[in-house]
């Protein structure tokens, strides 16, 4: 008895009027997968320099209903976060991604209660890094890892993402290129991709009640992005 798998593949081949691909045809397709070519990419970010990309990112983040803060260095981030929480009337506590531990110095914001790890649903606010920021559409790319757990991106009501200027790219394809080269190194551990790659464009929303857009359907109501120069 042939398996469902063989029957489905057989049915596909019968409909296409050929046998399984072999030889040169298969080699050409393997090559297409091994070194992925780019298709048409919109001109929108072509020719932009670093600061042009950052400007485009900030504009697009705003269109996607994010709030944006720009700071000169990482040292300023904790203070700006404390101020933002206060301005938004949010509790002075947060959970940060393990990878940020040591990188962000919270000693100057002693009123903030800072926890490190993933989220369990009880936290109001998370702080995470990003892997890349796509200025074409204001999209943040985040990857799962022991030091960047995915729960932080979805469970708290408020998500603060810290973007380094060097992480800002033009089109999505540039972010894929960076991810592929990062995975090709030791970091990949033999996996072509992290378990989860999230492309996030703005805070969670729904239009399911009479097509009126509401923020905070299941994921964060607010997405605040801090762009760090350098």
């Amino acid at each position: 008895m042939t398996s469902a798998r063989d029957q489905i593949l057989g049915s596909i081949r019968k409909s296409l009027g050929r046998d399984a691909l072999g030889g040169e045809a298969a080699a050409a397709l393997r090559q297409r997968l091994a070194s992925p070519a780019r298709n048409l990419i919109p001109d929108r970010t072509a020719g932009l320099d670093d600061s042009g990309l950052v400007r485009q990112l900030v504009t697009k983040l705003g269109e996607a209903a994010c709030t944006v803060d720009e700071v000169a260095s990482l040292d300023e981030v904790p203070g700006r976060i404390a101020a933002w929480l206060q301005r938004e009337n949010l509790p002075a506590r947060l959970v940060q991604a393990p990878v940020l531990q040591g990188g962000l110095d919270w000693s100057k914001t002693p009123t903030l209660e800072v926890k490190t790890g993933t989220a369990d649903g009880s936290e109001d606010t998370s702080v995470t890094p990003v892997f890349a920021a796509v200025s074409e559409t204001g999209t943040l790319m985040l990857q799962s890892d022991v030091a960047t757990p995915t729960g932080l991106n979805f469970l708290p009501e408020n998500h603060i993402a810290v973007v380094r200027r060097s992480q800002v790219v033009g089109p999505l394809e540039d972010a894929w290129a960076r991810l592929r080269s990062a995975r090709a190194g030791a970091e990949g551990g033999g996996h072509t991709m992290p378990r989860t790659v999230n492309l996030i464009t703005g805070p969670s929303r729904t239009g399911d009640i009479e097509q009126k857009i509401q923020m905070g359907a299941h994921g964060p109501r607010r997405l605040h992005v801090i762009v760090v120069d350098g």
Partner: protein
Amino acid sequence: MQSTSHSFKQNAHHALNDATLQRALGNIKTGFQEKRRQVIEALPEFESLRDAGRDIKNHTLANLDFYLERFEENVVANGGVVHWCRTPAEARETILAICRRRNAKTVTKGKSMVAEEIGLNQYLEANAIEPVETDLGEYIIQLRNEPPSHIIAPAIHVTREQIADDFRRHHADLDPNRRLEEPRDFTDEARAKLRDRYFQADVGITGANFLIAETGSTVIVTNEGNGDMTQLLGKAHVVVASLEKVVPTLDDAATILRLLARSATGQEMSVYTTFSTGPRRAEDLDGPEEFHVVLLDNGRSAMLGTEFQDMLRCIRCAACMNHCPVYAAVGGHAYGWVYPGPMGAVLTPSLIGIEEAGHLPNASTFCGRCESVCPMRIPLPKMMRHYRTREFERGLAPPKAKAGLKLWAFLATRPTLYRALTGMAARVLGAFGRRAGRFRSLPLAGGWTGVRDMPAPEGRTFHALWAERRAAR
């Protein structure tokens, strides 16, 4: 899902007389059409991207077996499993077996049209497993025990007054006098109610917008984040997807993503586009312990190589139904099965047979808007015409239509007789209708005049006028 597509005429009649439904359907124009137009105007390359998207899918379909095998290899290399299923029954049984092995009591579900296609919820319930829909629209219609009426806005046929009644009935533990008026009230209540369900769930089931052969990833595109919570918090992640969802590379997905959200909701990108590859890694702090892809054929492999192959390019954006005058008039339930609108009028007879769904390809004015907005350039009207031809050839058309066509064919192949008869009809109707300019009723045309007036001809046929002008030149 049990089909009522054979009753399309009665379904449509019922829908047209449903005042609440008509009010709900009024939201489509501003909600979808206008936003799509604006976002596309802001991207000069949109038309060229449509060509690129079409070409990627055509290439993939021509090599579908190859790319599915590579996809499977890469899922397995990352610790996941692919379950090949020929039929809805095989897919349901596969999913049940996974749930049983995990001793699952409840499963959370992200939005999936393929799960509707295989009737998953009813099947799980019949086997004592509770499915919990987590997309807000899907949650609402689950409470109402209804199927979705739109592929990306499943509760588009429901008004907020109806939802308020449903929430009060099902959320009986909450204050009965609470306010349920503004969209915010409903969103907050559903958010709170569903939060616990994510954590309780043993298995999380999502659909897939894409399968990536290069990496063995499955991709979901959502705005709410419900599909992400579903797969993050379930102990096992089951992806149910039909086999034409595969694309070769991440770059190919990037191209089609530029078309998808713009065509669907008028966004440049949906809020969450998530690539899932295998189960959680040993060192990860969260994520599912198992990763299963249930890959469904259900007749699609047989569509390859036929005049309906192009339908397999569909990315389920819903632009066709958002711009369809027939869909806007009758809503999605009238179509009687899972997929409504123009894409449903082609896909439904392909998947469940023309005997059951032969009415659907007739539910079109052939205005062509569906094809003009389809991001994958699927020739939907042409394929509906193919189905009409098939229906006629197989003798499935109603006797009256067959008799009418036979009579017309008889006349049309006898030009002298045809001209004489139509000339006479135009003169007689023109004379009788001159005063009013239209007819409220006409013998043999009750189907037309029952819902609208027939304009009176001006006394001459097109043929006659044409011949006169040619002679005058």
